[in-house]
């Protein structure tokens, strides 16, 4: 039994970095984290957030974030740094919608620097995710 457990562990240990590599490619998971053994293989940068409320079809930047909004945003960015797009800003968007009754939706814009290998320079990737109000205002 113990031998089987050891074999299962080693097989998982041997396969996981390949899965990790795929997660990095698809979800921008941090190559330095989560035991993929890809430290010092590629630069990885933290992201920054820009938040917009959608009102009557137009976007306006969110103003007046309270302390709890900032905590949720910081927690999201921390998770995003490790887990990439596997981390969802849904909870942050829901909170902003709950605090802004006139808004129909929230747009979360994630700005992340990345290492562009062909040019060997630092470039910017901007990703936007929209959240529509689901329940009553």
């Amino acid at each position, binding site marked *: *039994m*113990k*031998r089987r*457990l*050891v*074999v299962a*562990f*080693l097989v998982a*240990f*041997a396969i996981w*970095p390949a899965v990790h*590599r795929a997660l990095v490619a698809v979800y921008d998971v*941090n*190559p*330095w*984290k*989560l*035991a*993929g*053994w*890809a*430290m*010092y*293989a*590629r*630069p*990885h*940068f933290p992201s920054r957030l820009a938040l917009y409320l959608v009102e009557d079809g137009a976007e306006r930047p969110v103003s007046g974030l309270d302390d709890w909004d900032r905590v949720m945003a910081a927690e999201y960015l*921390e*998770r995003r*740094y*490790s887990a990439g797009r596997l981390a969802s800003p849904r909870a942050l968007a829901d909170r902003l919608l709950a605090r802004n009754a006139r808004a129909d939706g929230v747009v979360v814009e994630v700005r992340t*620097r990345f*290492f562009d*290998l062909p*040019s*060997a*320079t*630092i*470039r*910017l990737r901007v990703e936007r995710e929209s959240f529509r109000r689901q329940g009553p205002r």
Partner: protein
Amino acid sequence: MNAASAAGSRSVSGPSSPARPGWLEWFADPPGSDFAASLRAFRLLLLVHASVRLWDRYLVEGGHPLHLAMAAVLTLASIAVTRPQLARAAVFAALWTVGMEVIITHGLANHVYAELMLLGLYALLDPDREDEALLLVCALRWMVALLLLWAGLQKLLYGTYFHAEFLCWMIARRPAFAAALAWVVPSDELARLVAAGGTQLGSGPYRTDSLLLILGSNAVWIAELVLPVMLLVRRSRVVGAVLAALFVLSIQLVAREVMFGLLYSQLVLLALPGRGFRRVAPLYALAYAYLAASLLGLVPADWLMKRGGL
């Protein structure tokens, strides 16, 4: 070989032993080898490692009471593991503590995951039982060979070492890399890379004309692919283990990732046959004593450890 001598040459026995050694035992020592002493030495150093790391976290990274509790448990476990009757309980306590740390903390360094896996193996397999000790030493050696192999493969797959792009970026990002690699990069190019900074949009290109740096960069991933094979082949295992330990320690010293470097190089040296690791273990005990003294402010540690993320 007669039946008696065949029985005498068997290195495994007991209910969990295979009837015939499989691929897991490719990393086994010659029969009669006393590797249990090495396994016990590494068990103690593993717990000391976890303990020093948690004290460092508590004292340097903010003083959270939970880290204090974890550091205290791991210190007690490090003491208890030296008593044979308490050793298993100490390993389980350390496994529980590091497991809790992994569960409650985002974005931990990879060596913490390695620590957890190593503690898991020690919780599963008792180095004081002959049959389990063989499984344990083989599992640990497979683990480090796979770790080295994947570290090289990842660099190959990401493609940032062929023209030394990653090392150029590290020169820009960390003064320690710039200082360590200054002798292989022309001074004007070094100044350009350092000025680029490594974080500004549009900065770069992080490339070099230095043939030495390009060759060195490619030597890194090639070494990480070759060394596991040297570890696997019994005839080249000792040379492979020493080369791999020197390779790991030199890179981690330049990167100032001393905690990972210490753990990684110990794992590599576990490939030394018999009591080989036991013989070098006092050097690691001294290294941890130095780190503990640095936490008390008695000796400097800036030259060993970077603070803060990239």
